[in-house]
């Protein structure tokens, strides 16, 4: 009589068990690991995307001035100084909101349509814009002030030239001349103390937008007042408010030219 060998009988269950184990690995464990891995990959992708968006937000840079046009109009002049497209979604003038949908390309300057404001006497008007990326920018010109007692009603920001000298010890002289032909009495002159060891920052207030002539000299004990780098020797400097900032900055080093 033929019978199944004992060896074969013992192996059957082992083989079946092994097949079931392999089946579980391939149909349950590996798909589970794949799903988890995919979820992790999506998470990492999203994280990188967000890092990129945050960087884009951080890089947003604008030069923005608000100034009155007609008695009850405020114009916003915005220059996108960043490298990416800027989208303005909201303008706030005090507590009044003005929804916008304006795109400004990199390095482009746009003036927004005049915004009608409800004027109240002796009131300050703070202007700020909100970008699509969630940045809030306030007008570089500062707060506008309205008073019905003045001719056109508005006090606009003070205009001026701000001279920054990287001081390497020494005595400096700064002369701001309204017009090269003008009476020397209209010059504004500043002479620093030779004992100053810090950088020099001097503000010169002016009454009107226009071209001013700037001279910056450093005292050389051997030869008197000499130029610094870059040389400012009656150099024309424009204050172009409201087309540009109300304060024009001038930077020079304290090194002899």
């Amino acid at each position, binding site marked *: 009589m033929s*019978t*199944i060998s004992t060896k*074969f*009988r013992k192996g*059957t*269950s082992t083989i*079946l*068990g092994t*097949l*079931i184990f392999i*089946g*579980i690995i391939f*149909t*349950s*464990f590996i*798909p*589970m690991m794949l*799903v*988890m891995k*995919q*979820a*992790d990959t*999506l*998470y990492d992708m*999203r*994280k990188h995307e*967000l890092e990129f*968006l945050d960087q884009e937000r951080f890089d947003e840079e604008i030069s923005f001035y608000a100034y009155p046009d007609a008695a009850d109009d405020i114009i916003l002049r915005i220059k996108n100084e960043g490298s990416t497209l800027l989208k303005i*979604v*909201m303008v*706030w003038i*005090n*507590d009044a*909101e003005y*929804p916008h949908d304006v795109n400004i390309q990199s390095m482009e300057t746009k003036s927004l349509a005049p915004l009608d404001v409800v004027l109240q006497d002796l009131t300050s008007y703070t202007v700020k814009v*909100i970008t*699509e*990326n*969630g940045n*809030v920018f306030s007008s570089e010109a500062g707060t506008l002030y309205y008073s019905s007692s003045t001719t056109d009603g508005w006090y606009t920001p003070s205009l001026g030239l701000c001279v920054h000298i990287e001081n390497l010890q020494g005595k400096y002289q700064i002369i701001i001349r309204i017009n090269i032909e003008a009476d020397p009495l209209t010059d504004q002159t500043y002479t620093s103390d030779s004992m100053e060891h810090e950088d020099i920052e001097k503000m010169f207030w002016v009454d009107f937008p226009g071209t001013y002539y700037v001279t910056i000299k450093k005292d050389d004990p051997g030869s008197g007042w000499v130029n610094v780098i870059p040389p400012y020797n009656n150099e024309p400097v424009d204050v172009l408010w409201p087309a540009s900032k109300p304060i024009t900055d001038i930077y020079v080093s304290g090194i002899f030219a």
Partner: protein
Amino acid sequence: MKTQIPKNRRAISPVISALILSAAVLTVGAAVWAYSQGAMTINAEYYAESVINMTDTISERFIIEHVCYKDVYYEDVGYVTELHVFVYNYGTVDIEVRVEVNGVTYPVDEEVWLKLPSKEMELYQTIPLDPIWGEELNIKAYTRRENNVYYKYQVP
């Protein structure tokens, strides 16, 4: 009386025993297979869901864009001065927000969350709070996913 065990009694047929053993292995194996498949599917789904939730949490981006007092007219009580908090959701996921002013949370009902869809311009939470000139208000907006933003407002 003595009972005699027959000496020539044969064991169960080897074929049948092999079949029974195989059937038992297959049954237990199938049960383990089904259980593990179900458990691992649930595990994978749970993991994927938690990762998606975590992704949404890190994707939240919002700011308090403006705070001000406004006089609002109600037919029954007339003009009421309210603190308005404007929140802008500039992120890519919808958020649910509550606002806390000097430690007091609004809306007062803890179950109420203000929904603010992605890129939604604004939403304001009105808060019946009397203005005290010069008072500094510490305002916090927080979401259901526990992200916070802060704003300091001085009553003008």
